[in-house]
């Protein structure tokens, strides 16, 4: 281990955060987190969801106040009370969701809060001129008087970066900056990051995509459970090792058992075709096709924005979409989730908090929400029957809750997901659409859920599983369907396909036969 120890300390770090602690009511978010940034370096922070990356950044940029610890910036101890103070001290943040005002012009967004003035009045000419100059430094040429909302997402992100530059930042924090960009745009972003570095500006880079680290970052800090676990140079550390550090496992363990809880892949015999969709058209969809049989897990792979989620939502009737849709061979029109549920479908959404749980309702009510029509006589709910069902599924799914009457928001992510799975399973569905079923769930519960999905498919349930974790797709699915730009571009038998082949299809969209032969 020692040969991989941090590089020799540079004489004066630009930023030194030590012993940072932060607690929210009921949760300890950070406990002994540390971070050291050298001038002009690109520094990655990685960790699982909930490891404390975002909280640490929000303490750095003044959104939260820390409970303990010290921050030294440029040799001075600092204590930012709000984002403005952090900004004027040289810390600028670009958030995952672009946090700007769509109605206002590009220039106004860049200078928001620091609008140039002359004689006490706004100096609009100077503002437009300066904005155009900053954007030009990034190689972006756009009419700065246009409302920001009329630009595409990648361009809006460039505006956010320009805003950071205009504040004379010493450190730019980028939180998942590539989550909504395509390959070409990511390349442009990397160019910009290299440009910042050349100008002596340090970049803190937070991303789930480990490959990106190797492309632009110099050093990496690993966080787990609110603590800083490790920090080292990116060169010479393997991806597997980083994953092991993030998960808190030994490398050998990860290598031996695979990363997931799936075991039964390829051992099942698929039954009748449950659902068959061809030529789906709609938002982010451009002719995607997919089919699922009883007793099989179909993995739906694709980059962000490839239309993965949209396919699932279209099948479920959640969004309006055109195309040919057949359930068990019969043409149907699922125009609402209610219809889809009646047809035997269930959808576990990607964002549980936004689209899944009813936070203040109890576990009991959340679990039986979709089953209420079946549980009610003339609109009156049979609570005895309801309790019986809930008890059964709490036991069957291993949901850890003190009481079925507990509000669901008090449960951990993994247990919330189990309740949401139970919401569909108690209806005895024939097909489950699972959008990122294990995202943001701790390692133990993750494996449990994966085992459960395996068992359900064994019992004859059809599963369409979307995941951005390729291991999950490769190890779990019986068949892999790859989407790109709203179209189905490739389909593989998952038993003998490699990650590289799937990734190639995701990135380039080629359905070359060689893909399958390479694996053999």
């Amino acid at each position, binding site marked *: 281990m020692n040969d991989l120890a941090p590089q020799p300390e540079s004489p004066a770090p630009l930023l030194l955060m030590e012993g940072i602690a932060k607690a929210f009511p009921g949760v300890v978010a950070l406990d002994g987190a540390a971070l050291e940034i050298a001038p002009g370096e690109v520094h990655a922070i990685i960790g699982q969801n909930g490891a404390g990356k975002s909280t640490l950044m929000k303490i750095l940029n003044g959104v939260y106040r820390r409970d303990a610890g010290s921050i030294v910036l440029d040799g001075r101890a600092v204590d930012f009370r709000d984002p403005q103070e952090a900004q004027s001290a040289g810390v600028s943040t670009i958030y995952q969701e672009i946090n700007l005002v769509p109605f206002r012009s590009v220039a106004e967004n860049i200078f928001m809060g620091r609008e140039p003035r002359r004689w006490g009045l706004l100096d609009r000419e100077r503002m437009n001129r300066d904005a155009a100059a900053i954007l030009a430094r990034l190689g972006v040429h756009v009419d700065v008087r246009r409302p920001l909302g009329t630009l595409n997402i990648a361009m809006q992100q460039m505006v956010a970066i320009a805003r950071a530059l205009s504040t004379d930042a010493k450190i730019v924090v980028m939180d998942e900056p590539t989550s909504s960009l395509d390959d070409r745009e990511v390349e442009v972003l990397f160019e910009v990051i290299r440009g910042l570095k050349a100008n002596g500006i340090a970049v803190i880079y937070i991303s789930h995509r480990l490959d990106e680290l190797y492309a632009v970052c110099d050093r990496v800090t690993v966080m787990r459970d609110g603590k800083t676990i490790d920090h080292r140079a990116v060169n010479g550390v393997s991806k597997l090792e980083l994953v092991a550090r993030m998960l808190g496992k030994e490398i050998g363990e990860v290598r031996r058992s695979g990363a997931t809880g799936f075991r039964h892949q390829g051992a099942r015999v698929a039954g009748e075709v449950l659902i068959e969709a061809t030529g789906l058209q709609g938002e982010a969809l451009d002719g995607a096709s997919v089919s699922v049989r009883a007793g099989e897990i179909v993995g739906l792979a694709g980059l962000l924005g490839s239309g993965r989620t949209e396919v699932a939502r279209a099948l*479920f009737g*959640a969004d309006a979409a055109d195309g040919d849709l057949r359930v068990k061979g019969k043409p149907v029109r699922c125009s609402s989730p209610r219809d889809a549920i009646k047809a035997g479908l269930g959808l576990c959404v990607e964002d549980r908090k936004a689209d899944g749980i009813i936070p*203040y309702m109890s576990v009991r009510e959340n679990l039986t*929400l*979709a089953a209420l*029509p079946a*549980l009610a006589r003339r*609109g*009156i*709910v049979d609570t005895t029957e309801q309790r019986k069902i809930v008890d059964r599924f709490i036991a069957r799914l291993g949901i850890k809750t003190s009481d079925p009457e507990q509000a669901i928001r008090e449960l951990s992510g993994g247990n919330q997901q189990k309740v949401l799975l139970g919401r569909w399973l108690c209806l005895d569905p024939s097909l489950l659409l699972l959008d990122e079923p294990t995202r943001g769930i701790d390692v133990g519960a993750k494996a449990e859920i994966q085992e459960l999905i395996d068992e359900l498919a064994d019992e004859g349930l059809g599963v369409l599983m979307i995941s951005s974790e390729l291991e999950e797709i490769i190890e779990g699915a019986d068949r892999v369907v790859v989407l790109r730009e709203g179209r189905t571009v490739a389909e593989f038998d998952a038993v003998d396909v490699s990650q590289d082949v799937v990734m190639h299809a995701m990135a380039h969209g080629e359905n070359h036969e060689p893909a399958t032969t390479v694996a053999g």
Partner: protein
Amino acid sequence: MKRVDVPALIRAYGAFIALAALILYNSIFTRNFLSIGAFNANLTQAATIVIVAVGMTFVIATGGIDLSVGSLMAIAGSLAPLFLLDAYQFGTPVVGLALAIIAPLVATTLCGAFNGVLVTRIGLQPIIATLVLYLGGRGIAQLIVNGELREFRNLGSPLVPALEFLGLGQVLGVRFQIIVMLVVVVLAAWVLRATTFGRYVLATGGNSSAARLAGVPVNQVKMAVYCLSGFLAGLAGLIVVAINRSSDPHRVGEYMELDAIAAVAVGGTPLSGGRATIMGTLVGALIIQLLRFTLIANNVQDGITRMVIAAAIIIAVLAQRQRVT
């Protein structure tokens, strides 16, 4: 050691404590407070607030708000007398009486449906959608009666007393609208607790996107609560004109939206939706009424009374405010 969460305790029991304190104060310092007369008078006044606030509770539980209730009361109040102008306006007086009760309720329910359409089909924010009738509805009421106050004694139908029974009649010594109020409260509490609809209301307010994906007919639920709120506002409007034995389009239901929202908030239903308590709303309305009664009984001026009530509303909303995280 378990720490006592004082703000949470206040949120949970504050309304009951406040009500008990008001009752205790008046029992000691207000003469005749414990008489049947005062009891009837207070509950009579509270009844209309409770009825409207029950509808408001449902709307707020879905994450909405209904600012139009006061104006809808005025519309109901101004419609009712039109059917009782003389005995044989509709053949027989009975038809006139039936219309005088049914037509206003249908009209305000339709106004509620109009609010619901603006919210569900047009996609307006509930505040903006119901602002239209809040601001314009009283204008409609004034138009219906040409802005004139209509005295019931000037109406020709022999069944006018039957309409007045809504506000002035007694059953076994209890004022009729108190019975109406109790029926509304019990029914509403039961619906919220026991039925699919009640759960759909809470699910819609708790997370409408998640509710829709779980098969909850979110738009129909919203339509239903705005219709319900309109219907109950109409009922309250009829009771008010019956009590007053006259219909004044300027005055009927004035500030009712505020009283109703206050009753809901004071009772412990958060304005952010997803949770609701009908019993709390009942207690909240009683608090608002008793507060007003206490001030008047102590000869506090009308103007000061209004300011105190406004302050009480703000304090209640502050106490219910969700912790911003």
